[in-house]
C-alpha cells in the first residue's frame, strides 16, 4: 500500500524583514527595506505509512509547523515534493482537504460566539456529509469525546480543555484518512491531555486514521506514537522508532530496589544514588560503565532483595539527550515567523 505521506527534499525559505533599532531604523525600513532569507525547512525527506501515528518533534522554530502547513497545502514549498494520499497538497488542496484534517493547538476552528453544536452542524454542511450520516457521526463523537455538557454552551465560555476536546472531535467529523495535529495538548491539564490522547488512540485503532503529530510533551509521544521524526533547523536529524530511540540514546537505567534492611549502596563506577530512604534505594546505572547484572550482584551480596524494578528514564530525558548529542537548539523562525515574512520565490 502506498504511504499516506511522502516528502522528498522539501524546502521552505522565508524572507524576513530586518529592521535596525531606533527611529533611523524605522525610517530606513520604509524606504530601503532589507530582508534576510531564513531556511525554515531544508531538504526534508520521510514517509508515513497508512494507519501510523508519527510524532514530529524538535525545539521551537525547528520547522515542524511549517512542514505541516506544506503537507496540508497551505504553504507552497520553495523546493521539493510531497504527496499526501496520492495528491500534491499545494496543487490539489481542494481535493485533499476533504480527506485530511488539521488541529492547530493554538488556534480555533470553532465559532467563538456560538455553541459547538452550531460549528459541527456547519462543518457537516461544509464537508457535504449527508444529514443522517452527519447526525450519527456527531452523536458518536459527542459520546466518545464527552461533549454532552458543553454542547450548547457558547465556545467563548468553555475552558481550554473543553474547547480542545471540541476542536479534536470536529477534526474527526468527516472521517479523515490523515489527521495533522499541531501541538493538540498545549496548555492542557493532565486529565484533559489524557482524554485527548485516548480519543486519538481509539480513532486510530478503530478507523485506521493516520496521525502526524507535533508536540513538546514527551507523554504525547510515549503514549501515542511508535515512531519519531526529530527536526532541527528544518533538517531531519533522526527518524527512528520510540523503542529504537530509547535503545540508542539511553545509556542509563533506573534501578529501584526494596531490600530487607537498609544497606550502603555499592560504590561502583557508573552508579549514582538518586534516592535512599530506609530499605529503599533508587540508583541510576550508566550501562556503558556498569552492568545491571553486576550492580544487582553487588547488592545481593549485602542483603536480600524484596522487590526490584528496572526502568528507562522518562522520554523527556531521552529527547534532551538526543538534542544534546545532535547539538540542537532553538531554530530561527522555522515554525512560521511572527514577523512580516513572505515566501522566497
Amino acid at each position: 500500500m502506498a504511504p499516506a505521506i511522502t516528502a522528498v527534499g522539501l524546502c521552505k525559505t522565508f524572507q524576513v524583514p530586518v529592521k535596525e533599532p531606533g527611529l533611523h531604523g524605522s525610517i530606513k525600513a520604509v524606504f530601503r527595506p532589507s530582508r534576510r532569507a531564513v531556511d525554515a525547512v531544508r531538504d526534508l525527506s520521510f514517509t508515513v505509512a497508512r494507519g501510523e501515528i508519527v510524532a514530529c518533534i524538535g525545539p521551537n522554530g525547528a520547522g515542524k509547523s511549517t512542514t505541516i502547513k506544506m503537507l496540508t497545502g497551505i504553504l507552497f514549498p520553495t523546493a521539493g515534493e510531497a504527496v499526501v494520499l496520492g495528491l500534491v497538497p499545494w496543487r490539489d488542496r481542494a481535493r485533499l482537504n476533504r480527506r485530511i484534517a488539521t488541529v492547530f493547538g493554538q488556534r480555533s476552528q470553532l465559532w467563538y460566539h456560538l455553541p459547538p453544536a452550531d460549528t459541527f452542524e456547519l462543518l457537516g454542511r461544509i464537508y457535504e456529509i449527508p444529514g443522517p450520516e452527519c447526525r450519527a457521526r456527531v452523536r458518536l463523537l459527542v459520546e466518545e469525546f464527552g461533549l454532552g455538557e458543553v454542547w450548547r454552551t457558547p465556545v467563548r465560555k468553555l475552558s481550554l480543555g473543553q474547547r480542545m476536546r471540541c476542536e479534536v472531535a470536529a477534526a474527526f467529523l468527516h472521517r479523515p484518512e490523515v489527521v495533522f495535529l499541531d501541538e493538540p495538548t498545549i496548555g492542557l491539564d493532565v486529565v484533559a491531555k489524557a482524554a485527548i490522547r485516548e480519543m486519538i488512540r481509539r480513532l486510530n485503532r478503530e478507523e485506521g486514521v493516520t496521525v502526524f503529530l507535533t508536540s513538546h510533551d514527551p507523554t504525547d509521544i510515549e503514549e501515542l506514537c511508535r515512531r519519531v521524526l526529530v527536526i532541527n533547523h528544518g533538517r531531519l536529524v533522526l527518524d527512528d522508532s520510540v523503542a529504537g530511540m530509547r535503545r540508542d540514546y539511553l545509556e542509563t537505567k533506573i534501578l529501584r530496589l526494596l531490600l530487607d534492611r537498609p544497606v550502603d549502596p555499592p560504590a561502583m563506577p557508573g552508579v549514582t544514588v538518586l534516592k535512599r530512604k530506609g530499605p529503599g534505594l533508587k540508583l541510576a546505572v550508566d550501562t556503558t560503565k556498569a552492568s545491571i547484572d553486576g550492580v544487582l550482584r553487588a547488592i545481593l551480596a549485602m542483603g536480600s532483595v524484596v522487590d526490584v524494578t528496572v526502568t528507562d528514564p522518562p522520554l523527556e530525558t531521552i529527547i534532551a539527550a538526543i538534542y544534546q548529542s545532535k547539538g540542537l537548539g532553538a531554530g530561527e523562525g522555522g515554525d512560521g515567523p511572527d514577523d512580516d515574512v513572505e515566501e522566497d520565490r
Partner: protein
Amino acid sequence: MGRMMMWRKIGKYVAMARQAVRNRLAYPREILGRVMFLALILFVYDRLWTKVLGERGDFAGFGHAQLIWYLLITEAATFSFPRLQDRVSTDVKTGDIAYRLNRPASYLGQLLAEYLGETLAGAAAISVPGAGLAFLLAGRPPDLSLVHLAPALAALGLGTLVSFGLTASLALTAFWVEDNAPFFWIYSKINFVLGGLFLPVEVYPGFLRTLAEILPFRLIFSAPARLAVRFDPVLLIRTLIAQAVWAAYLLALAWLIYGKGVRKLNVNGG
C-alpha cells in the same frame, strides 16, 4: 445526482451565511449602539435639512422627507456591512487562515457568504428601528411605495456585491501587508464622498459628479437609495446593468488577487 451535489455545494455557503446571521445577532448591544448612533445622525440631519431647505422646501429636487429617507438607507447599509478587512487581516495575523484554507470551500466563497449573512442581519436589525425614526422625523416620502421599494432592494442586493468586490480586493492585500487598515481608512473616506453617503451624487457639482458617476462607489448604496426615494425606471435599468458589470469585474479582481496572494501567503505562528 449532479443536481444533488450542486445543491450540497450551494447549501454549504447558505449554511455559512445563516451562521453569520446568528453570529451577528449574538451581540444585540453592539447593534443597539449602531441604532442609537444612526438615530443621532438622522436627528442632526433632520435639523440641518430643515434649516437648509427653509422656505424653498427642496434641494435639487429632493424634499426633506426624501433626503432623510435617503440618508437612512445609505447609513443603514454602511452600518450593516461587516468589516471584511478586519476579518482577513485577523485571519492572516493570527494564522487562523490555516483552518479556513483547509476546508473544502472557497476562501472567497466563505467570505462572501459571511458578508451577505452579516449584512442581511445587520440591515434587518438596524433599518427597522431606523425606518420608524425616519417616519417620525419626516413622514413617508411621496415616492416610497412597495412597488418602488422592491427594485430598490434588488439594487441594494447588487450594491452589496459591488461593496464586497471592492472591500475583498482591498482586504486581500493583507496576504502581503498583514495590516491593511490604512487602505480602508482612505477607502471609507472616498466612499463617504464619491459613494454619496449624505446626498445623491447627481446633485454634486460638475467634475465631482462626473468622477462619482464613473467610479463604482455610488452603486453600493447611493443609487439604490436614490431609486427608493425617487423612482425612475430608466435609472433602475442603468443602475442594475452598471452594478452587474462592476460586481462581475470586482469579484473577478478579488479572485485574481486571492490567487496571487495565496501563493505569497505566510501563515504566522508555529
